């Protein structure tokens, strides 16, 4: 039986990155939990072995149960009846298996019944789950709403809700409304405080993934008469209290197993999470950052399955007397798919390590005050995570779409039929560059790091890493890309007082940053892990990225800001 973790040795390599030692040491408070919990690790090696063994369970479930159910789930889909959702039978079987395997609440502390895993191995599990069934990754991955509960809920709320998530109850984040999609400041769902301190919610939410979940985090307007984000608070709604019904579920193009719900709140009892007015500006921002990393992992999983399906078909399919993989037109496509897959995966785990580093410090800060060094480190990694999350979500989701497209192309006419998994992969991929913020919004989040120099700092750091002799020529080429990037940034920055021009060019600059950073990451990863396949991808990706950077450089250098009018409809 296939195991989606052990059949992909790159995963274990990424798990062994040198920064992991520090992350785990901090996360395990220097391994003091082992005295209290018999499943806590006694040292770094023990912890890594735990991650390895648990990911092996994830890989086995994914390669068996979840991948086997994917097609049935896609055909069957969930249904809604009397306001309640029933999952497809395969989805239910997947959830049951994940619960029995204890794979819920993976990153939650042990005192709440979690596994106390860092974000990195958790994100790795998401990567694996997505390869098996992209839509199911949503349901399983919504466990990271518990992260937000843990960060901002009070002790009582944590103690009541988090153990339920760890035991397998599902969550949802109820943000979007008919008139508040990308613009969440316009959320209208009304929250009214009761004399007993609880709240009542009234209104409608739309496009809510897993909207019939057990525990909801809800963004609602608590401040009467306000119109912007500062009048919004976050609430916890417990399905056991009732008051929220599913009016309909959307008929979607892909990720069909994941129910997308329209919810009606009728005087639904809820409790405030955190402080009033911080719902959007603080909590949802944190929630979204976690969710974006989750979508990045989902995207990498899609790239993986797309590549594998395409590779298998290209080896099997014979035309003109040989397997089609023998033709340059086909093997180029496959090599580029693999390079995009490996590049986005390297950036995914780099980002997850950054997130791990700052989050673990934030958590420690709840127990004791941090030393100035620790505070500085937290700030540094928080900024890096903030810079890399939109990058990996934006570019990773675009790559998985490109890979899904090429996967069908390699299948030719057969790929257009419903007979192969690739058509499902293609449909499932499409949402990744839309939800949790479109690629265009990821650019908005990323562009400030172009101009404040966060990306440049990262590039400078990579440039100083020593790599094997074989990979040094690639390092030199990456350095040239940095020069081109800096020049383009300077060109755009030199045009003053023209917001539209800046916005117009932002995508190009962010892509150039991403191309360059991923080139460096692939080179350094290939060198550190002594991986032949990564070294191959590093070269292919460098060729690709270099050309992309040159293309954008050329465009930016020759573009006349006054031509912008010609682009307007």
């Amino acid at each position, binding site marked *: 039986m296939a195991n989606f973790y052990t059949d992909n040795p790159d995963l274990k390599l990424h798990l062994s990155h040198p920064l992991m030692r520090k992350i785990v040491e901090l996360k395990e408070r220097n391994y003091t939990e082992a005295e209290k919990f018999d*499943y806590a690790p*006694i*040292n770094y090696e023990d912890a890594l072995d735990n991650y390895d063994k648990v990911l092996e*369970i994830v890989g086995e479930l994914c390669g068996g149960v979840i991948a086997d159910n994917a097609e049935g789930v896609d055909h069957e889909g969930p249904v809604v009846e009397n306001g309640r959702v029933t999952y497809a039978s395969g989805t239910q079987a997947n959830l049951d298996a994940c619960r029995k395997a204890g794979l819920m609440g993976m990153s939650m502390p042990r005192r709440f019944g979690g596994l106390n895993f860092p974000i990195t191995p958790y994100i790795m599990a998401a990567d694996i789950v997505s390869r098996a069934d992209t839509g199911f990754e949503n349901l399983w991955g919504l466990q990271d709403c518990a992260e937000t509960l843990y960060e901002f809920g009070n002790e009582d709320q944590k103690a009541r809700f988090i153990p339920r998530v760890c035991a397998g109850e599902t969550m949802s984040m109820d943000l979007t409304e008919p008139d508040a999609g990308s613009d969440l400041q316009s959320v209208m769902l009304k929250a009214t405080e009761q004399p007993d301190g609880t709240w009542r919610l009234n209104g409608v939410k739309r496009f809510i993934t897993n909207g019939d979940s057990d525990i909801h985090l809800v963004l609602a307007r608590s401040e009467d008469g306000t119109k912007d984000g500062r009048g919004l608070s976050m609430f916890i709604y417990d399905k056991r209290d009732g008051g929220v019904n599913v009016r309909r579920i959307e008929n979607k193009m892909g990720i069909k197993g994941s129910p997308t719900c329209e919810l009606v709140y009728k005087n639904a009892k809820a409790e405030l999470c955190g402080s009033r007015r911080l719902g959007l500006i603080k909590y949802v921002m944190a929630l979204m950052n976690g969710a974006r990393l989750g979508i990045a992992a989902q995207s990498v999983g899609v790239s993986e399955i797309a590549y594998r399906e395409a590779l298998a078909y290209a080896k099997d399919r014979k035309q003109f007397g040989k397997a089609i993989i023998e033709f340059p037109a086909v093997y180029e496509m496959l090599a580029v798919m693999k390079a995009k897959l490996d590049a986005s995966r390297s950036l995914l785990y780099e980002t997850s390590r950054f997130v791990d580093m700052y989050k673990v410090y934030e958590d420690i800060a709840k127990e004791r005050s941090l030393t100035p060094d620790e505070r500085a480190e937290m700030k540094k990694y928080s900024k890096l995570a903030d810079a890399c999350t939109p990058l990996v979500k934006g570019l990773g989701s675009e790559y998985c779409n490109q890979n899904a497209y090429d996967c069908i192309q390699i299948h030719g006419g057969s790929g257009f039929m419903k007979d192969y998994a690739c058509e499902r992969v293609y449909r499932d991929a499409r949402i990744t560059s839309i939800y949790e913020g479109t690629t265009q919004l990821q650019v908005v989040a990323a562009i400030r790091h172009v101009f404040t120099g966060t990306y440049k700092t990262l590039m400078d750091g990579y440039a100083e890493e020593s790599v094997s002799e074989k990979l040094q020529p690639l390092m030199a080429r990456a350095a040239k890309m940095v020069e081109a990037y800096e020049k383009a940034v300077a060109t755009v920055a030199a045009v003053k007082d023209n917001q539209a021009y800046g916005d117009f060019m932002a995508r190009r600059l962010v892509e150039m940053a991403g191309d360059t950073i991923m080139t460096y990451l692939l080179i350094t990863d290939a060198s550190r892990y002594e991986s032949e396949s990564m070294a191959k991808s590093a070269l292919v990706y460098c060729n690709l990225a270099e050309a992309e950077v040159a293309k954008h450089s050329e465009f930016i250098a020759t573009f006349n800001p006054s031509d912008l009018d010609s682009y307007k409809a």
Partner: protein
Amino acid sequence: MSLNIVVLAKQVPDTRNVGKDAMKEDGTINRAALPAIFNPEDLNALEQALRLKDANPGSTVTLLTMGLPRAAEIIREAIYRGADAGIVLTDRTLGGADTLATSYSLAQAVKKFGNYDIILGGRQAIDGDTAQVGPQIAEKLGLPQVTYAEDILDLKDGYVTVKRRLESGVETVKAPLPCVVTVNGSAAECRPRNARRVMRYKYAVSPSEKAKLAPEILAIVERRPELNLQEWSAAYVEADPDQIGLAGSPTKVKAIENVVFTAKESRCLDNSDEHIEGLIKELIANHTIG
């Protein structure tokens, strides 16, 4: 009520992925060429045992396996999935056993274990495919047996009700406890390994595995009794040396040959005397039996 449940399991070579080197020249299995796995139908039996445990809080599930010391691997595997403890019956003198000697040895171990309410095992192991060991153990222990079990429907008042999957349909039978139930591959699949249990029990070892442990791990094992798996010898279970191992095995392998299946036709016979007699005569005539 709480139950003492024994699950009989075997570590087997994974014959589902057989290559050319699967057999040695002498007709025995080349175990080195095949990965050792938990016999699939024993996993089905384990699931039934764990369901009984779920339904009867306070019950314990103990895995009993006979084999090389490394068979402790499947005990850990069972514990990861929810079993409580395990015993490896291992001894040089047990080697080379056929089903008769195996069932005798395991029956001795079950006797030694004592105080059992129900004994579950897979229908058959994928290496020998005999399906004899479970029933023979029942005979040796003087217990009722239910074979081809697909689902344990009920267990109360000293009886177990079992759905059996037969060639011609489904049969539901009731047997008094204690009894032996052998479980079919069509029964529910075993639950997955549980993440927390894997981390909690990954250092569970048998005495012969202890020697290889690093000092800091050994310290953990010494501190936590549940990490100590049992290893029983032939002498410990008071087995008669003449009835175990090669000495106790009347089965002798005469020759072994590669067979390519060339079945051309199939016939369906019912269990009437007429048909059975006809078949026996035919098989004697073509020297298949006799």
